[in-house]
């Protein structure tokens, strides 16, 4: 069973979101990294880029798969995890910690309501596994 921390929020595209006021840190879930397998490459946006909810933020690639990273929330990128560019395997090793991808400043904090809780995400995985 995939690790799903209770303090985080989740999207149906398997991103996790850590909220801190009008800021959100985004990464991919343990389930997502496990399905992809060994991650070999990450493409991240640039600081300052703005996105609408459900836009593609970047890409993660393994040897046999590629997956877009979607932002579940609208906003502006204020920080990216540059260490991933040289060490993409960090996402496999520590998806909820050192494997974070971007920090966004939210333009519409009300969108947070659309995110899933741990229980909801668990149920979602159950349904779609």
């Amino acid at each position, binding site marked *: 069973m995939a690790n799903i921390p209770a303090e985080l929020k989740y999207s149906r595209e398997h991103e996790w979101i850590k909220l801190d006021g009008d800021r959100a840190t985004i990464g991919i879930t343990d389930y997502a990294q496990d399905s992809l397998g060994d991650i*070999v*490459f990450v493409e991240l946006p640039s600081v300052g880029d703005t996105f609408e909810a459900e836009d593609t933020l970047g890409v993660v*690639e393994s*040897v046999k798969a590629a997956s877009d990273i979607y932002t579940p929330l609208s906003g502006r990128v204020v920080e990216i995890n540059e260490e991933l560019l040289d060490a993409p*395997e960090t996402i496999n090793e520590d998806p909820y910690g050192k494997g974070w991808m971007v920090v966004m400043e939210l333009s519409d904090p009300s969108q947070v309501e659309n995110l899933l809780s741990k229980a909801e995400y668990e149920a979602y995985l159950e349904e779609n596994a």
Partner: protein
Amino acid sequence: MSEPLIFELSRPGRRGILPPENDVPCKEVEQLIPAGMLRQDEPQLPEVSELDVVRHYTRLSRMNYGVDVGFYPLGSCTMKYNPKICEDAANLPGFTRLHPYQPEETVQGALELMYHTQNYLAEITGMDAVTLQPAAGAHGELTGLLIIKAYLKHRGEKRTKVIVPDSAHGTNPATATLAGFKVVQVKSDLRGNVDIEALREVVDEDTAALMLTNPSTLGLFEENIVQIAEIVHNAGGLLYYDGANMNAIMGITSPGRMGFDVVHLNLHKTFATPHGGGGPGSGPVGVKAELEPFLPKPVVVKENDTYRLDYNRPLSIGRVRGFYASFGVVVKAYTYLISQGGSGLKSISEHAVLNANYLMHRLAGHLNIPFDRRCMHEFVCRPRGLKGKGVRTLDLAKRMLDYGYHPPTIYFPLIVEEVMMMEPTETESKETLDDFARSVIKILQEAAEDPEQVKTAPHSTPVGRLDEVTAARKPVLRYNG
């Protein structure tokens, strides 16, 4: 066994081929070309003798597996025997030593050969006209979809959607995007056919085309093809035939008879031209009459007894490559076609289907056959009861290398888990199929009794399993010595 890189064999001052003495008076190069435009650094090509080169590449060839080495049941790729006479024909100086801009009167033999090949392929596919221009199957797909796009535009229609089944080869959706269409996927039903109800739901006035392979990538004949064609045509869309699996139906039926409007073929599959380790191939495209004006130009035409290149085609989509065709590949296919004739082509498909059904039958008690139906020229299957042993399809495939076989296609089509796709082709004998079946059964036994032996395979190849993760994480794409 490992072989140094050609660069590692280099010795300063050693030479391979020497050009003849220059027989014209020479000037200082700097007098002809400004110094700033001249190369300052010498390209670091190897310095080796002819024997160094010949031995190096001969040794490399021995680390490679081809149809001439052994059985190659690679599904969807039609790895049949490539007749030697076809190679000889393509290597005739009367074909290789022709410049594509030569006057047409000096290349009548080449044009005649292309003209007949166009016609034979039109006859086989049930189409009205054929272009030989596309350089490969995927290139043919792009050509075909651009023809559809131009045709629709000419009719004043703006349709944006191309439908592909979930079992389709990845090139279908990739091509549709490249041609500027939106891709819509339609699922398969339990018999492996296109789900008709699902199709009805997605086909509408915005549908430009449905791309279909028949037999499908599951190796099954799409039984509802007539109905499918009707659904798409009634909505004003066109039907695109991916000819990857043409080897199953020659002389039995044709894309034209099934209702398709555009077809691409792979000369390197059905028509026995070799795959060359990844190319060159050739992907001719056939169309029904109303689409003919949109074919790439030029097309070879015959007037009285003279052949010429017709450029006067105002509605043409233009060119998709330089010049006219992968001509050398076309020569091989033409040679094969006339060596077979109409009756021979039908016999090829009959025996390709016979061999696939026979092999499937031999393996049916040992592997899971997800679709319990007659297969066409290939079939899909998967191991059963090996998950607990931690043995995956990949492991079985790698173990087959130790038995001297090229494994079947694995993990495609994507809709069947742990799938293997086997295509024996018509050129393999009963005893080859029997031997292969026995080996597969033995490997399955090994997997059950001694899984480590299988999971660590291959054991007898020049290299073992390679680290693809590091290759992709820290790419080394050239020699930097």
